[in-house]
């Protein structure tokens, strides 16, 4: 046993030395151009955020691979191309670990560019640290409303708008369809509850009061009795805001319950269609509504980078897999950084931030319009409303609202399966 301990010690020491060596690499960013541009980020290989976080990370990595194939990304401040290197740590979905790892990236690796992990929870702890060290935190998907309450130079949400504004279009669609009886069930977490609140407010402004409006715990996994309770209110439309596991349980329970509503809306079929189809089945997804996200909706005209269709082709060729929304979001983050470096006149965090502000409103990428405000919130592309319509063995996404983006009209009421 003493031997065992000795091993533990050795492992410990070896680990410390190894990390020490790794750390000394990224130091010293001087007036001279660095030989490699370090981009620090975190991902979660396990825990509740693993699925989403790994998707986003893969997208970012794919971006780095692509630019490095071209000899790197052009940096205006040095007037030349510099290869990028991603330094990434695994936070296991733990905020405590994420805190130390953000600090690791900032203080030990001294990365040039800092990119947050997926989602609000894992982004939150990086915000004060970045500000403290005067680093610009590039935030792909952390959209907590709490984050963007005052002017800052050190935070920029680049890939998705705050979840608070996601359901605006959905609300207008429901009002436009003159659907009066609407049930809203949501998980009690920042992401879902803020959407429920916005939708309720939007509907009430249009004179519609939801007939059912309740939060359930984020851990909720069985909706059978809840669905029955909802059905008792005779709603025409049932809107469920949850994370992917909730949406899976909800849709499965709905299809096996024998209940049927004229309209059913969930979030994740629009982001992780493969995962949802695999778990829920194409039949149960047919005619349900969602927020369609790239690559399920395509941005044709872009001002920077490939358009959505071109990206999907490239990604499929390189990775032999269909990209999902999070891959796109991660890749888009890389693109925004790339554009930022091409336009920032100086190699400083403030200059980076100014570049992002200058890009705002004038840039369109495969993810849509890029527009941030001085608090760092993303105001660009609003999500539209899509419906999954049977096609072959699966479903295809039809954007049904708003009109200018629509690729078809809603099948309402949804036919019973």
């Amino acid at each position, binding site marked *: 046993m003493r031997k065992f301990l000795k091993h533990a010690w050795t492992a410990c020491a070896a680990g410390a030395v190894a990390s020490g060596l*790794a750390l000394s690499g990224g130091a010293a960013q001087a007036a001279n151009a660095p030989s490699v541009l370090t981009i620090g980020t975190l991902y979660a290989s396990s825990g509740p955020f693993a699925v989403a976080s790994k998707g986003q990370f893969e997208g970012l990595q794919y971006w780095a691979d692509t630019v490095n194939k071209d000899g790197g990304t052009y940096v205006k401040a040095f007037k030349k191309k510099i290869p990028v290197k991603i330094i990434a740590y695994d936070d296991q979905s733990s905020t405590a670990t994420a805190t130390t790892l953000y600090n690791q990236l900032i203080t030990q690796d001294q990365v040039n560019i800092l990119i947050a992990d997926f989602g609000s929870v894992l982004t939150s*702890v990086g915000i004060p640290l970045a500000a403290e060290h005067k680093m610009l935190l590039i935030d792909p998907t952390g959209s907590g409303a709490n984050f963007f309450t005052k002017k800052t130079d050190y935070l920029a949400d680049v890939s998705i708008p705050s979840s608070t504004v996601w359901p605006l279009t959905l609300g207008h669609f429901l009002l436009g369809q003159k659907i009066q009886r609407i049930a809203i069930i949501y998980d009690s977490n920042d992401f879902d509850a803020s959407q429920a609140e916005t939708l309720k407010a939007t509907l009430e402004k249009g004179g519609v009061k939801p007939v059912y409006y309740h939060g359930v715990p984020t851990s909720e996994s069985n909706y059978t009795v809840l669905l029955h309770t909802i059905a008792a209110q005779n709603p025409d439309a049932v809107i469920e805001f949850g994370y992917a596991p909730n949406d899976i349980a909800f849709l499965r329970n709905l299809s096996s319950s024998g209940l049927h509503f004229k309209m059913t809306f969930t979030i994740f079929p629009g982001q992780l269609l493969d995962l949802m189809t695999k778990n829920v089945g194409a039949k149960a997804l047919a005619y349900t509504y969602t927020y369609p996200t790239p690559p399920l909706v395509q941005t044709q005209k872009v001002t920077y980078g490939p358009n959505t269709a071109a990206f999907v082709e490239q990604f499929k060729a390189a990775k032999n897999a269909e990209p999902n929304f999070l891959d796109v979001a991660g890749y888009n983050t890389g693109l925004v950084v790339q554009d930022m470096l091409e336009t920032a006149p100086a190699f400083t965090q403030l200059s980076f931030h100014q570049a992002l502000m200058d890009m705002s409103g004038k840039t369109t990428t495969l993810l849509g319009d890029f527009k941030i405000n001085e608090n760092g919130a993303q105001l660009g592309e609003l999500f539209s409303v899509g419906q999954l319509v049977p096609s072959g063995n699966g479903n295809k996404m039809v954007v049904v609202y708003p009109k200018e983006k629509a690729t078809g009209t809603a099948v309402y009421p949804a036919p019973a399966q």
Partner: protein
Amino acid sequence: MRNATGGTRYAVAVLATLAVAFVALPQVYGNQSVLFTMMTYMALAQGLNLVYGFTGYLPFGYVGFFGTGAYACSILVTFTGLPVLLCVIGGGLAALLIGLILGPLLRLSGAYFSIANLAASQIIYYVVSNEALKPLTGGPYGIKIDQVFAPTASYAAMLVVLLLTTALAAYFRLSRFGLGLRAMHQNPISAAVAGVNIVRARLVVWLVSATVAGLIGGVYAWNLSVFYPDAVFTLEISVFAIVFALFGGVGTVIGPLLGAGLLYTFYAAIGVSTPQYFQLLYGSLIVFLVLFLPNGLVSLLVRRKLHVL
């Protein structure tokens, strides 16, 4: 008790070493968050040791006090504008109050106590994070007190809390009160027959341990300054505190400190080098520890007849 003065000297040395180490380390190692988190876990392991090591009650829901402290402190900062240190103390008092409410749990034995305590911590978590409490706690939206964000000051505060907790452990180990605790831990009925007020002693230890966790939580919230309920109520915090304390050796002063210090270093090192195997390595390590070193690292020293505080 013959070693009381020697013991006291030993305790002072431990406290001084801790203080010097955590004042000096930031000069040579720049990732203050790692050091801060290490102190947090050292303090938590020590705080848990107060109750588990000295009474045998394993508080699986220890994180409940930590989270209570974090939220009470943040709420005070948000609504009262008191100096942040007072808010941290408020966090400790809130945890003390919760400890008092949960006092009747001490009537339960072994596993029942642990699990009932776990249930209590989950209840606090669910109540704090419920949407109905949004105006007060921020509910699921989390809470933000970045107006008081001060990494260096909160680092110093955590060091003070760590020293306080360790001093308490030394008191439990060396004092007359501690003699009664040891007797009670080994045989509660004989201890009572010997005149030890076991009900009161247990409650005192429980409340002290709860208060300490509340203080740690308060300082932790101050350091984080933007967080969601999961960040301060995740069960992982209890589990780490238990594993760290056990690894070092409970019922001693230096055991939990050694355990948390070494194991957290190990954690941080594999987290950086081979994260994909992290959970596997960690789980296996725990299995090996329990099977081959159940009384912790300090038992190796004791076996060599070294005096351990």
